């Protein structure tokens, strides 16, 4: 990372003081074999571990696993897979992307990621989400109508737990804690915690208030519209008496040798996956015209050759005042081979190029 002058005054880019971080995220996308037949959930999870190990080998900074509970994303316990990756790596940072905190217990989340932090020698992170993927609510007996209050309370408790001292807490979403020592203790201060935000400005304010990093999850529309969120976050941090903090972007994509090959591999899997979500949520299934716009310079999908993807990442980091980009790679139905190639190209070609472009 090039050394840049620190921010001075409100006009300076507040992100200039943060190192450029380029990561990869997965939801445990269920692979297909070379005949297009889905592999088992167990094989998919073993594949994710291999993906994480490869990500370190090709120089990726961060590997994140997002909690999901469906047949096409069979990844409800990503922290277990992260622990397996931790045992086989030494440098790459490992975290959730995201943890659906609203339907989890903040104490358990802290314990699991503090354990991962121990196993990995201090490489754990967590991205907390309110839950746009909501299968976990009925599964664990939470009322979706309460998701806002659930997240608000639990995020505040999580911020307390991260301080690493005995916690006294009372609320309506879990049993009270009185001067509770929560183990395992942190070895060297709190691990990084972020909040994943999909478009609610109130969530941006909350991240600032609680002192969490901001991850902008951008999966549709024009990424540039989130620039104001990034500014809102920095202004809110200032208002709460906190220093500027890093902003990250999370978006889906796929890298292949050429734009054509990337499109060819990704589009049918994207269409099929979005169709499943569209059916649940009742919106229209995107057509190929929409897909071409999404993958074009204005859209929020990063699908193409290393050069195409690198240019788009660099442009949007700049536009969004962000210093970190996590590419959500893979898609249900892609083969493990094509996913591994995508990871390799990301680490070996996209990342160096992004560094060049933003320098």
């Amino acid at each position, binding site marked *: 990372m090039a050394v840049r002058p620190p921010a001075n005054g409100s006009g300076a880019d507040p992100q200039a003081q943060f190192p450029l971080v380029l990561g990869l995220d997965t939801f445990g996308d269920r692979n297909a074999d070379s005949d297009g037949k889905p592999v088992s959930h167990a094989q998919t999870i073993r594949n994710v571990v291999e993906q994480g190990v490869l990500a370190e080998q090709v120089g990726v900074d961060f590997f994140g696993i997002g909690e999901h509970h469906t047949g096409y994303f069979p990844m409800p316990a990503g922290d277990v897979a992260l622990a397996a990756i931790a045992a086989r790596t030494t440098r790459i940072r490992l975290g959730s992307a995201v943890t659906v905190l609203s339907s989890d217990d903040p104490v358990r989340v802290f314990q699991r990621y503090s354990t991962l932090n121990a196993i990995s020698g201090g490489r754990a992170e967590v991205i907390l989400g309110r839950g746009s993927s*909501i299968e976990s*609510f009925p599964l664990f007996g939470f*009322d*979706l*109508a309460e998701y806002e209050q659930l997240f608000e309370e639990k995020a505040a408790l999580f911020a307390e737990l991260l301080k690493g001292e005995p916690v006294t807490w009372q609320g309506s979403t879990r049993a009270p804690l009185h001067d509770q020592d929560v183990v395992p203790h942190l070895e060297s201060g709190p691990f990084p915690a972020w909040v994943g935000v*999909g*478009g*609610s*400005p*109130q969530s941006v*304010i909350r991240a600032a208030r609680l002192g969490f990093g901001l991850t902008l999850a951008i999966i*549709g*529309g*024009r990424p540039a*519209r989130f620039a*104001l969120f990034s*500014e*809102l976050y920095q*202004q*809110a941090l200032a*208002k709460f008496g906190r220093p500027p903090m890093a902003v990250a972007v999370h978006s889906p994509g796929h890298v292949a040798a050429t734009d054509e090959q990337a499109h060819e591999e990704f589009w049918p899997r994207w269409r099929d996956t979005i169709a499943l979500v*569209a059916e*649940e*949520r*009742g*919106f*229209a299934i995107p057509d190929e015209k*929409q897909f071409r716009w999404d993958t074009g310079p204005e859209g929020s999908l990063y699908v193409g050759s290393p050069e195409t993807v690198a240019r788009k990442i660099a442009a949007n980091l700049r536009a969004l005042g962000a210093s970190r980009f996590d590419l959500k790679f893979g898609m249900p139905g892609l083969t493990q081979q094509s996913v591994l190639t995508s990871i390799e190209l990301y680490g070996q070609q996209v990342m160096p190029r992004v560094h060049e472009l933003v320098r």
Partner: protein
Amino acid sequence: MHEAETGLPRLGVLGAGHVGPVIARLAIRAGYPVAIAGAGDPADLSLITELLVPGAQPRWATDAVADADVVVLAIPLHRFLTVDPAALQGKLVIDAMNYWPSGDGVLSDFADTAAGSSEIVAARLARSAVVKTLNHIGYHELEDNARPAGTPDRRAAGIAGDDAAAVRGVAGIIDRIGYDPVLLGNLSAGRVLQPGGPVFGAVLTAPEFEQAIRAAKPAGDLPSGATLPAVGARPGARSGQGG
């Protein structure tokens, strides 16, 4: 405040989440005086409005509603059930909400009926004129797709309501904030705008929009009381767009 200058109705937007600020911003740009309210203290909204909706007034919900000519409901439907109907009495109400069991949980008021969500909303707001619109456009593209009247490929917004004057008023607002209004008829005809319907989340021009509704609705499939839109049944373009 600038209502004296514009002569336009005052909008009170309820909801400061994904949707409310975007509608408020479009309305401000079109020249409307706008107040916006979240669930709580307007002081908590000051940063959001200053930066995301400059020109809008953050207010307590009761105040935003009391002073508004038009109230925009952009809150989760489960929260609507806690809104006091008396507060909205006599108002023109734009219902931009959706019943979304996968996002809101199952709400028996809306689940145990064939009626559309806006019909349930209207039944609760018996003394308001409820108009359904904007619910079918994704918040992430609501602003990007807004265009001045007369722009080729301008996107359509469906409008449904039982009060003809209210529908006309809302059509004027929709046109002014950047969409071609397509009048669908009464509120029950607005069921086609709901999740799972032929135009929900689809980016369509007015002719495409009307075609999509026709194609998806063979006669036997029509909800009772629904009327198919007449092609071209939308008000003429207004002058003085944007700003």
